[in-house]
């Protein structure tokens, strides 16, 4: 009996050895039949209209396609299921010519009837569609022949064409949708036209797609792709290093520095349109004074925090609307400068020579290193006399806090991030700074910022079709907002994935997606 612990050890080793050929190490090896990607979350729905999460959209993009392509070249709108389109001079009529000979995975033709069905479905109030407001301008959809579709708008909508390129507006097979009925959100068999076909969703575990042999465009190189749901970032990285998966989204941020030097791994990273900032409640105590808000911007050393807490996974904000978006301009190169002396001066001028105390909330795990950088900011603010005590809470509670009316809100200073699926300043600014729509409880701009001039500029810019005029309007609005300092402008986040070295051609887009459909394997 004395030997039993050792015997047990031997048994464990034997069992382990028996399975030891299951996962050969990554490295020099032939191209796998199945490309495996570790993702952080499971899908909530596979109905493209119901999607709220970029990563879920990213997965369904493998089997659905849209009329226009807004993602291959950010800022440009290219043909996809539509080959040509025309917009009337008044901006109220859009005519699309569809690609001929395209079939859905269920064999039915992709034609004008399918497009009409899809667009009417995403406007149908009985269908859950969180992004319906993007398409609210569509009044009617008419077909003419098999390949022509005409949209009539109730008012000009400069963002409509780009919105038709978002996953929400993916073109669906009417037959497949009707056949699936209530099950469409969990088993959307045959409904898309994309380069891959939906095969299986094992809930909580994986989603598998297989190559579409009849795809109209370029065929991808992997026969199958499997998305594995791995909620823990550390485990995603472990699976990549163990060779169980070939690509992992968002490995732990603190590991990225080491991974960039790891010869067996490629880190693919790129800037996105997600701005991260401190909301200052402009109707609360000291923050009513623009000098205090400016002082807060001077007091935070964004560059230092980016380097030491975010591992360079961000770029200092230079404007309320990231310059990569339509209309975005760098208002101030390098962002608000770090200048604690100036900050103290401004605070003294505003009557806060000895600083003040402020409640400071940050979420945990929502943005890169969020709770960690909040603590760094709190320490820097202490240097100018602002005592900010950081607390955190879970995300739904956080959203509930944001959505409280101004007279009851607990928001004094909070961390928030904002991104938009359409790369247009309308998305970056309207919902945060237009006082008519942004203020909670109905809006999501808890800064309670109000500037009538800005309101007018933002309204005009979303009703004008002339791109140059819109750019001018957004330029003025961004400058006004920047100097009013309703936020502490921090940075725009990067987005990143890690792949095994053999996998080539993976890209990351500005709207937090990976592009790996046409990735290839180099032995």
């Amino acid at each position: 009996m004395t030997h039993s612990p050792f015997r047990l050890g031997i048994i464990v080793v034997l069992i382990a050895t028996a399975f030891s050929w299951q996962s050969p190490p990554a490295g020099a090896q032939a191209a796998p039949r199945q490309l495996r990607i570790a993702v952080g979350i499971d899908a909530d729905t596979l109905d493209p209209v119901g999607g709220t999460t970029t990563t879920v959209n990213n997965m369904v993009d493998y089997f659905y396609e849209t009329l226009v392509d807004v993602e291959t070249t950010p800022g440009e709108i290219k043909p996809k299921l539509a080959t040509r389109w025309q917009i009337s001079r008044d901006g109220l009529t859009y005519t699309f010519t569809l690609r001929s000979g395209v079939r859905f995975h269920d064999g039915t033709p992709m034609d004008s009837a399918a497009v009409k069905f899809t667009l009417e479905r995403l406007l149908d109030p009985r269908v859950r569609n969180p992004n319906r407001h993007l398409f609210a301008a569509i009044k009617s959809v008419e077909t003419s022949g098999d390949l022509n579709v005409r949209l009539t708008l109730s008012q000009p909508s400069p963002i409509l064409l780009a919105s038709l390129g978002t996953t929400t507006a993916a073109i669906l097979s009417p037959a497949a949708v009707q056949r699936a009925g209530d099950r469409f959100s969990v088993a959307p068999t045959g409904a898309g036209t994309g380069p891959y076909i939906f095969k299986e969703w094992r809930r909580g575990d994986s989603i598998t797609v297989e190559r579409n042999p009849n795809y109209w465009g370029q065929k991808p190189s992997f026969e199958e792709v499997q998305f594995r749901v791995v909620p823990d970032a550390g485990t995603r990285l472990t699976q990549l290093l163990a060779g169980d998966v070939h690509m992992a989204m968002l490995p732990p941020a603190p590991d990225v520095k080491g991974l960039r030097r790891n010869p067996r791994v490629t880190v693919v990273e790129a800037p996105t349109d997600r701005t991260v900032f401190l909301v200052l409640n402009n109707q609360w105590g000291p923050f009513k004074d623009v000098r205090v808000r400016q002082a807060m911007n001077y007091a935070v050393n964004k560059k230092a925090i980016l380097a030491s807490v975010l591992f360079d996974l961000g770029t200092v904000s230079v404007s309320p609307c990231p310059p990569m978006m339509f209309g975005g301009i760098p208002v101030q190169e390098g962002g608000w400068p770090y200048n604690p002396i100036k900050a103290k001066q401004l605070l003294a001028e505003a009557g806060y020579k000895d600083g003040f105390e402020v409640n400071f909330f940050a979420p945990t795990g929502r943005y890169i290193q969020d709770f960690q950088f909040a603590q760094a900011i709190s320490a820097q603010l202490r240097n100018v006399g602002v005592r900010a005590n950081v607390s955190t809470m879970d995300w739904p509670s956080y959203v509930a806090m944001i959505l409280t009316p101004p007279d009851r809100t607990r928001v004094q200073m909070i961390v928030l991030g904002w991104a938009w699926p359409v790369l247009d300043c309308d998305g970056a600014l309207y919902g945060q700074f237009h006082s008519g729509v942004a203020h909670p409880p109905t809006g999501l701009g808890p800064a309670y910022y109000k500037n009538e001039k800005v309101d007018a500029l933002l309204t005009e810019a979303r009703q004008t079709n002339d791109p140059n005029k819109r750019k001018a309007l957004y330029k003025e609005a961004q400058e006004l907002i920047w100097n009013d300092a309703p936020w502490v402008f921090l940075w725009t986040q990067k987005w990143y994935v890690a792949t095994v070295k053999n996998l080539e051609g993976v890209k990351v887009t500005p709207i937090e997606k990976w592009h790996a459909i046409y990735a290839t394997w180099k032995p």
Partner: protein
Amino acid sequence: MTLGSYLVRRIGVALPTLVGVTLAIFFMVRLIPGDPARVILGLQASDEEVVRIRRELGLDRPIYVQYGRFIGRLVRGDLGISAVTRAPVIEEVATRLGPTAQLAVSSIVVATAVGLGAGIVSATRQYTAIDYLVMTVALCGVSIPVFWLGIMLMLVFSVYLHWLPAGGYGGPAHFVLPTIALAAFSIAIIARMTRSSLLETFNQDYVRTAHAKGARPRAVVLRHALKNALIPVITVIGLQFGALLGGAILTETTFAWPGMGRLLVNAITSRDYPVVQGIVLTFAVIFTVVNLIVDLLYAYVDPRIHYG
């Protein structure tokens, strides 16, 4: 009273408990701040969309009406549909119950075998090097957080040795590491309980008698002492099994295991009330059944206990 009527009485007692559980969970989940409609739709959704979903989910009705509907459906065996995926809650729970139950069973089997063995070894060699070694390892077992142990196991056995997959659900190989990680705590608890319970019985008269009449030491330990020492151990094993089913959340997250614990966490963070209710109710039923089985085992182990 027969065993049958005992069972009927126990089930009679269990029912009000379960009704109490439905009440508690129904109201508790609604007390946490956060609007399900807003959480489900995401930040970009318009306000009118949020109002629409709130109506669809029945959240615009008074809370007693909501509870009435919930109970009304429940007695017909319907747990409602998930607010997020809109699949039936029964289906959501059923697809996750299997992986969780398999992992819990494999862990409790390993934990019982190893824990009992280690406890017996330790007790029969009290204050020797082996005893100290086993108890030190057991102390580590209760102290090491499962997510750390899980990552370490994966680093060693998956990344460096390439013996076993690093998480994920699948064939027997996928079970090895999560079972070890999940069982570690229970092994330690069972080993410590077995040791102390055995040591107590060693001082009893009947053990001395057994020794005196010349029974072999092995028989004295296993037949005379151990059987009498088992009651608290069985209680602990029963509690551990319940904890393994419900407490596997961290293990399931670390090992990407598609089980109930993770479903519960996701449901709570997305304020998916029907799914939270369904899972908690399932856990409550399982706990009740496990407790009942433990009570019945007492009678088997100790013939002095009668339910008849």
